[in-house]
């Protein structure tokens, strides 16, 4: 399926043979999931987040179509009220 070379060269996204992505600095097994699925699983409230995928904003209307790949880096900013 994937070949990552020798153990020494294995990047962060392949740990123990499981392919993962980085979400808010934490490495998790979310490869293959859509942004919408990820937000739901992590209990982020609808309409109160901004999502950056590899330093690029993910347009809100593409959350269901955007699927995570091994090695992706996701930053989810959650907004709470007050100002």
């Amino acid at each position, binding site marked *: 399926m994937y070949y990552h070379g020798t153990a020494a060269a294995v990047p962060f996204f392949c740990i123990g043979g499981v392919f993962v992505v980085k979400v808010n600095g934490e490495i998790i097994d979310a490869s293959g999931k859509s942004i919408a699925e990820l937000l739901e699983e992590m209990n982020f409230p609808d309409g109160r987040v901004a999502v950056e995928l590899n330093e690029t904003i993910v347009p809100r209307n593409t959350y269901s179509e955007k699927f995570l790949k091994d090695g992706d880096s996701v*930053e989810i*900013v959650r907004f709470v009220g007050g100002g």
Partner: protein
Amino acid sequence: MNINIPAKEEMYHALEVRHGIDFQKKMSQASAAVCGLGGLGSNIAIALARAGIGRLHIIDFDKVDISNLNRQQYFTDQLGEFKTKALADTLIRIAPYCEIVPHCIKLTEENIPELLKDDDVICEAFDLAEQKAMLVNCVLEKLTDKYLIAASGMAGTGSANLIKTRQITKRFFICGDEENGTEEAGSLVSARVMICAAHEALTAVRIITEGNI
């Protein structure tokens, strides 16, 4: 009231002495938008006016209410006035040569791209979480050449040291503790809201004076 307002050159020189020539030149050529003029926005605007920003675009649709006085930079004699007018009156007293552009309007998905097109730095200073997310997503999706500073989490009386500025991407910064909203922590206390506003204002100053806009 003293009507002898100092000359433009005199005021500019005083700022140069305080801040440095290069700093002041960059500040005087910059334009910042402050979106929402509540506890965050009124404090951000005052900090930027004092720092000698050239153009300040202040946007809100609301009027000054008695419930605002616990944390927002308005006065009892301004109750009932539009916040844009009330704040502009204060800003002019601080920085008479700053170009103040008040817009008494509700920012929406539709009008944001046009209204904010002339601003270098955009400060999100709304109250409601959904509105914050709307503005941030809209700017990041449609105004990709802007610097954006947003706030999340300044309610309650938690430690001031939990409020921080985090850079998300090259042009997007978030200020706050990212946890304590009005739903979670209830109250909004002047000192803590001002700390978050100061984070936003300082980030704007740093972008303007150290960045490449």
